[in-house]
């Protein structure tokens, strides 16, 4: 069921790949049309995206604001650098926590595959420290919803191996 692959490459790259059962045009639109982005780019359970600005043209602005009833809010800004419908999006982004994180340069490609789309998202961070920090901060935001699942995982892991 887990179709997503997440790996690091060299010191500064993070690569995410996944297959979608829809044509590249649909996947591309879901990445560039605000009313679609707002439906899925929400991270862990409980977060919503009340503000979604997505000017899908070179130089166009990106602003995503997330909110959670208990955990508050934070936002991301960015700019589009290049768009090739329906195969490639290049943009830069930074999170504001509230201080801005260093720029994350992201190239997302959509290639037709088995009646669907194979997506490759390549994130390039300025240096190894920044990548470590980005992985850590993203994980922090992923933490809340994952705690319960992690507990389950640990329980089943411990039960399986019998290890302490």
């Amino acid at each position, binding site marked *: 069921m887990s179709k997503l692959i997440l790996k690091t490459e060299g010191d500064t790259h993070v690569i995410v790949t996944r297959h979608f059962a829809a044509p590249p045009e649909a996947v591309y639109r879901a990445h560039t049309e605000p009313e679609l982005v707002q439906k899925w780019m929400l991270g862990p359970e409980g977060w919503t995206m009340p503000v979604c600005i997505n000017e899908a043209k070179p130089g166009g602005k990106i602003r995503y604001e997330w909110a959670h009833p208990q955990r508050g809010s934070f936002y991301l800004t960015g700019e589009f650098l290049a768009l090739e419908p329906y195969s490639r999006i290049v943009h830069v982004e930074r999170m504001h926590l509230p201080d801005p994180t260093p720029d994350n340069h992201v190239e997302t490609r959509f290639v037709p595959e088995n009646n669907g789309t194979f997506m490759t998202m390549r994130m390039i961070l300025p240096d190894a420290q920044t990548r470590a920090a980005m992985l850590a901060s993203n994980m922090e935001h*992923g933490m809340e919803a994952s705690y319960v699942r992690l507990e389950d995982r640990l329980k089943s892991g411990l039960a399986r191996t019998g290890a302490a």
Partner: protein
Amino acid sequence: MSELLPLDLAFAAVADPTRRAILARLARGEATVMELAEPFDMTQPAVSQHLRVLEDAGLVVSRIEGAKRPRRLAKAGIDAMDQWLAMLRKALEKNYDRLDEVLATMGRNTEQKRKGEPQ
């Protein structure tokens, strides 16, 4: 940041290529400082300095064997990092599972539109 948490220390520790190489070497088994210094063309004090960072981050432990202090990977620290990476993967998976639903709805809408078109 006022206080560094163990995981911050761990990720900071592995942001250095030499320390990652030391971890990779230790993944193959226990090694002394001398054995670790050799392939890296480094002085023993330099290696000891890196080992201290890795030990503080909870990624490496040592034991005493006579005059030697062989180092090995600390399973708990390495597992903790693995779990954090697994959490990021989970958050992304959650996003893309939702995207699957959005895409399915888009597909249905397109079909309905086609069906609803006047002949």
